[in-house]
């Protein structure tokens, strides 16, 4: 249970800058998810927090105490690895208690901690086995047990679920969430899986190219992405981004789609701009998520539009339809119980309460 502050961390490997001025503030009991594509620096950041890598500049503070120059073992953190990193030659019992033994904890305390953790994670029947005799999910539990048993200030998770199959992953995800609700510890969790990030995190920091693009609650990240990268990264299929510009007619702002043929102007009078200057004639992306394209009017800010359906992808519980919007593609996500004919003009409703606009030049939200 602790707070974690990261102040302006920079990290280079040779000439490659991996982390460029990272700032994070994690309060006690927070579950922060570092999310980003591979190579964005999220694992490096985690290793820097753990002390396995040293930052070139910047400070890491655990409970307001600077830990930059401390050994990983002295930082009172625990790290769960992607490969679990269990010690193959030791039994589960030894794996879990190794850290405590290295810290010269008394035998009674070790035994007590072991019993607690093994009951909590339901690994008590596995204690005498070797890691090679465990299934993936069991190894995952043991790896978490090894972290939990020391009762550290901060838990770090490095893509802990990515080696599990899809079904087990969902199961373990729920267990991690339950565990966090029960123990209320501070957690930093690295993943490239947005579903994992959305469902687990109390806040999500989206990283790309060594920079934090946005750090907010999952809901804010989903509803109000800060820039094109975040908009594109979160959501599956990702947000439709339609090129066009902002025009002004009769003192009202409209979005006009880039097109030689027809003119479709979408009213923006209810859109909450970040700032109101220089909006006229700005080249922008009009962003709308596929799930916010509806077949019938269900919001007072609905905008009705007729589009031609071009492609239907059926994926069981839902279907994804590709429409042609002035020669740009726009995807819609619908329940698969609705029958949508192909190659036909269809009446659609955009929910304008849920749109985002981005500057084409800076790719920032406007």
């Amino acid at each position, binding site marked *: 249970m602790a707070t974690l502050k990261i102040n302006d961390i920079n990290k280079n490997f040779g000439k490659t800058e991996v982390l460029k001025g990272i700032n994070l503030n994690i309060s006690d009991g927070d579950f922060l998810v570092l999310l980003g594509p591979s190579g964005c620096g999220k694992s490096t950041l985690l290793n820097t927090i*753990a002390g396995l890598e040293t930052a070139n500049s910047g400070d890491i503070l655990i409970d307001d105490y600077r830990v930059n120059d401390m*050994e*990983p*073992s002295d930082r009172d953190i625990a*790290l769960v690895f992607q490969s679990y990193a269990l*010690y*193959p030659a030791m039994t589960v019992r030894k794996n879990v208690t190794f*850290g405590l033994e*290295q810290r010269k904890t008394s035998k009674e305390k070790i035994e007590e901690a072991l019993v607690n953790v093994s009951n909590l994670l339901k690994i008590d029947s596995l204690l005498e086995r070797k890691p090679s*005799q465990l299934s993936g999910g069991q190894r995952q539990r043991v790896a978490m047990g090894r972290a939990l048993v020391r009762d550290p200030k901060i838990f770090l998770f490095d893509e802990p679920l990515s080696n599990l199959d899809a079904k087990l992953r969902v199961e373990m995800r729920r267990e991690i969430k339950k565990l966090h609700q029960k123990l209320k510890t501070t957690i930093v969790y690295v993943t490239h899986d947005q579903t994992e990030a959305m469902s687990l995190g109390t806040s999500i920091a989206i990283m790309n190219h060594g920079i934090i693009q946005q750090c907010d609650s999952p809901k804010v990240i989903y509803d109000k992405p800060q820039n094109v990268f975040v908009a594109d990264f979160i959501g599956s299929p990702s947000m439709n981004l339609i090129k066009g510009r902002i025009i002004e007619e009769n003192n009202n702002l409209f979005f006009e789609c880039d097109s030689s043929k027809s003119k479709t102007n979408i009213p923006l009078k209810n859109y909450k701009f970040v700032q109101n200057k220089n909006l006229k004639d700005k080249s922008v992306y009009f962003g709308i998520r596929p799930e916010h394209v509806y077949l019938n009017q269900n919001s007072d800010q609905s905008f009705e539009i007729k589009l031609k359906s071009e492609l239907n992808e059926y994926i069981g519980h839902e279907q994804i339809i590709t429409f042609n919007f002035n020669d740009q593609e726009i995807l819609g996500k619908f329940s698969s119980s609705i029958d949508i004919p192909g190659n036909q003009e269809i009446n659609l409703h955009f929910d304008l309460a849920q749109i985002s606009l981005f500057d084409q030049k800076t790719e920032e939200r406007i």
Partner: protein
Amino acid sequence: MIWLKRNLPKIVISPSFALLVWFVYGFILWTLYISFTKSKILPNYKFWGIDQYFRLWSMDRWHVSVSNLFIYTSLFLILCILIGIVLAILLDQKIRAEGFLRTIYLYPMALSFIVTGTAWKWILNPTLGIEKFFIDIGFENFTFDWLITPGMSIYTIVIAGVWQSSGFIMAIFLAGLRSVDDEIIKAAKIDGAGVVSIYTKIILPMMRPVFMSAVVILVHLAIKSYDLVIALTSGGPGTSSDMPAVFMTQYAFHRSEIGLASSSAIMMFLTVTAIVIPYLYSELKREDGKK
């Protein structure tokens, strides 16, 4: 054609397979039979019972060979593995010019035991090598004459053998150390283990299969060692550094006692079997159990 296609692998392999069966297993059986005969310079196929074994075990020279074999094998094994592990761990510290150093340590393996033996014969020769060197630089009472001291000459063979083979063992262990997942070492660091306990408690216990390869390679090298002994001491002084392989060739080809030599060969064969097979068996079984 289909018949040919299906059986081509078997056809290609069968000549070498037949040769292997005849020249290895066939001659093991032949030697076994000869050891039960009275053969002298030429094989004599009349069965004579196990008298050659009684003769063998009543010979002092055989007893010397056998005890030398145990001294040599155990020291050779332990020292090679110890030195090999230490070198491998030192090389594993992400040092500069690692490839260069690795080659240096591995090069003795490229020499034949005859060259090693001859070189060490000069190095250990009291009037040419180390002893002379120390006397020349002023330590006039320095003596290092194991090569010509009956009870100690076997240890010079150990020195030369270890020099030759420990680099190879290092290479095997280095490969093993490199296969250890980085995350395991990171996990151990976070668990608070120091460098020494990371190696002794976590990494070396993971090296069990490597130990197995090393032991099998070293034991068979030790038991069949012949050329090193011949080049370094020729079994001398006297017969004090004799080894079973030397004993066997001496009796088979110089003293015209094929029967006796065969019985000694069978004893060596049984020794290898007695040491290696149970070890292999237990290790392989353990691996099976894992899966």
